[in-house]
């Protein structure tokens, strides 16, 4: 069947099987590789995307569920807050190998939309489903906190 949705700000239309996963369709058929395959069973968060603004695990989401909706990946997140987050990630050393990073970015962005001034504990709780094997999480939290602090000054 053919499904249509908005992907990172453009309209796409793609033929999918009813059992096909959103992650595979994004990567194999639509050439958007920001969401990563890592565990395949919703344990690690590397495939996180926004579906109508809500974070979902694209490895557990059927592609047909995206029909008529809006999918935003790390590549499609834009705006001042996204820029600040990206800069803070770079400055604080939140990025090492970078494989978990697109998922972390999507999730951190979603967090800052839900809560303007999350505490460290709230950051850690919100992001607990996103695994990172390199950073020990410290500098990722620092990056998010930096944006929170800057938001406070604005």
């Amino acid at each position: 069947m053919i499904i249509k949705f908005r992907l990172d700000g453009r309209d796409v239309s793609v033929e999918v099987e009813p059992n096909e996963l959103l992650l595979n369709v994004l990567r194999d058929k639509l050439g958007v590789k920001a969401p990563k395959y890592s565990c395949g069973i919703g344990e690690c968060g590397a495939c996180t995307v926004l579906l109508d603004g809500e974070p979902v695990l694209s490895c557990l989401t059927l592609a047909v569920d995206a029909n008529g909706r809006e999918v935003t990946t790390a590549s499609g997140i834009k705006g001042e807050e996204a820029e600040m987050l990206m800069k803070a990630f770079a400055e604080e050393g939140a990025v090492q190998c970078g494989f978990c990073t697109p998922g972390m970015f999507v999730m951190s962005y979603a967090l800052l939309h839900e809560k303007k001034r999350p505490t460290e504990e709230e950051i850690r709780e919100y992001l607990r489903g996103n695994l990172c094997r390199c950073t020990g999480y410290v500098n990722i939290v620092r990056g998010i906190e930096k944006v929170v602090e800057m938001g406070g000054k604005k």
Partner: protein
Amino acid sequence: MGSTNYKFIGRDIPRRDAEIKTKGLLEFSSDIYVPGMLYGRIVYSPYPFADIEEIDTRDAESMGATVITPKDVPRKLFNIRLVSVEEVTFKDWNVLTMSPRYLGDPVAAVAAPSEYLAQKAAEAIKFKFKKIYRPVLDAFEAMSLDAPAIRERILKGEQEVTVSKNVGAELNFSEGDIDRAEKESDVVLERSFKTNRRYHFQLETKASLCVPEVDGRLSVYTTTQTIHNTRILIGQVFGIPLSRISVKRIPIGGSFGSSIQTNLVTLISVALCLKSGKPVKIVLTREEDMYDHADYEMHLKLRIGAKRTGELTFGEMHNIMDIGAHQVQAYPLLGTALGWFVSLYKWKNILYEGKAVYTTKTPSCAFRGYGAPQVSWAVESLMDELAEELKMDPLVLKLKNYVGLGDVFWGQGPTVRSIIRSDGVKELVERGKQLIGWDKRQPPSAKKGRFRNGIGFGRSFHTSGAGGPISGEVIDYSGATLKLNEDGSLDYITALQDHGGGTLEAHAKIIAEELGVPPHLINIVPADTSITVYDVNTHASRGTYVGGEAARRAAQMVKSKVFEAATRMLPKAVNPEAFKIRYDEALEQAVVYIEGMKDMKVTLAEIAKASWQRNWGTIAATVSYRATSAPPTFTVFFVEVEVDTYTGTVKPKRVVAGADLGTPINPKLAEGQLHGGFVMGWSMAYLEDTPYQRETGELMNRGMAVDYKIPTFEDAPSIEDFKVIFANTYEPTGPFGAKGLGEAALNPVAGAVANAIYNAIGVRFYTLPITPEKILESLSGGE
């Protein structure tokens, strides 16, 4: 030492790839797609230990899939890792095998236009078995007389050797007189330790894409820590000249040692590509990846002796390693485990016996620290026990006996020796002790109530590379090419892989410092084997120390050529040696000048342009560099834990991580190594293992990530409670005084955590991980 005078070294400059990584635009191996590409799938035996009679591929082929079986690949045994010299390389691998010896042993592979079809074809392959054996899952059982032979004949270099009692390799060593030393000892302690078989859980599963080019060459995009060794192995296995193969350096989504060797998935993609004549890509599933590699499980029996004064008298270690079904670097690790042991403390008299034993489990390979986390955990635990026995502060005992400045150091094994020239251990212990509040530490007997806190200390080190003044059993050298572009910017070309720690970023800063060119004008060129000189591997924490020094030397050569060109531009100058180069803040570029002479000054960009316009030629240099030592980066960890005596759960409350890495090139990224090292070490101490199902030989978790827990955001200490300190040292043999850090950042952690748990509840554990179950059992009178 002098770091304040540096323009770029030691300053935090955000890494150039952070933004494209964050947006998911940087392509890893699995992200590369080419037109007409086939998807490959690997077929495994349903039994971990069997001999196959026949493989029926007809159904798969009738589906239109390309199929390969052992008869399609060369039969000669090889080792997937090429770091050791030929004569001590143990070979027991084939690309595909009729004799699977673990559940992840590939026996066939398919390729088809879609992943779905490939999977269907893989499932259609049928086997007829000659013999099915019971899995052998324990090293001691494997060495017993009635255990079946997992392997009978393997190659050592080109020599055929017979495997007896499933012992794949052995190494024994002794120095001094243990018997006499024991008689002179006031205290002798003997303990047996068992480490966990951890899975690397790098976030990117292994992947490979092999593309046949129109002129018949092969291009390979794959997960690897070494593009050159990957190319050499492909050449050796398939009999292809290296000039016909190009292995690309592709970013790697974490590795932690799991791709020091050339991965089988790489060789299988090449075999499928050769057979189909089409590009073939294979991405391992998480389940396949978990059956592909694991850490070395070590059974360590330690005996140590000391006098009442705290002076050590001898150290003895028996190391039985369960290496799984293949040798990757079992033999060199027998030497390195010994190296870690003897380089921690001055035992004076040493006895060592090491055996690498085959079992029908996932093959063990290096995992960040290469045996040092295991050995350090055992030694640091036992030294704490010894201190208690001697009624000494463990810090005092350890500082009294550690191998440090001026001592002979051979961390990477008996053939890799050098002298220690920088050592910040005392400084780190002193500062760390204050930060954690060591002097207020209470003995376990003083702890009461449900929640009990404990403070523990652990120290260790890792080498920076595996170089040395003589050529031993390990290949270790790097290379760099640097060329000055026509506008004064630079292209830096290296084969060295960056795991994500920012190694290449460090190289750029080293070049920047040497030439006064800002790092953003130094292009780290996407590279492959065809355009780079050899680099052995990004392992052994050698990336900054060895690779960075190669880059620095290339920059020095470029610099002297720049000075020659400067004498042409400023004819009043007599000798090139009179010139200096520096970054000019006002001009925001490099200038070449003679001190004290205002008119003797020209920018690097002007020199570069003149060299082009006046036909002087390109200024460039290529270096192949071998380090004459492999200096230790010392690390110490002070950890405070909280044990819940009702549930057995443990939390890390406070951490002080100290590192003597010489000059930190990228302080923030270096801190990040210590954060990541702690969390990984915590996980080793408390969470991780891959137990096997006795009857079927399967992993208990069947490769499912939900049943392999690693720490999350919520399991790490808060920012406030995680302090990182660097020693004020300078390594004279390193680039601008730097040493390596990646592995040292992890090595002492499990020991520090175990000692902290002891300090909280008064119980010592000799098996990792120290799970809540074990803790509860011990508190109710168990272990």
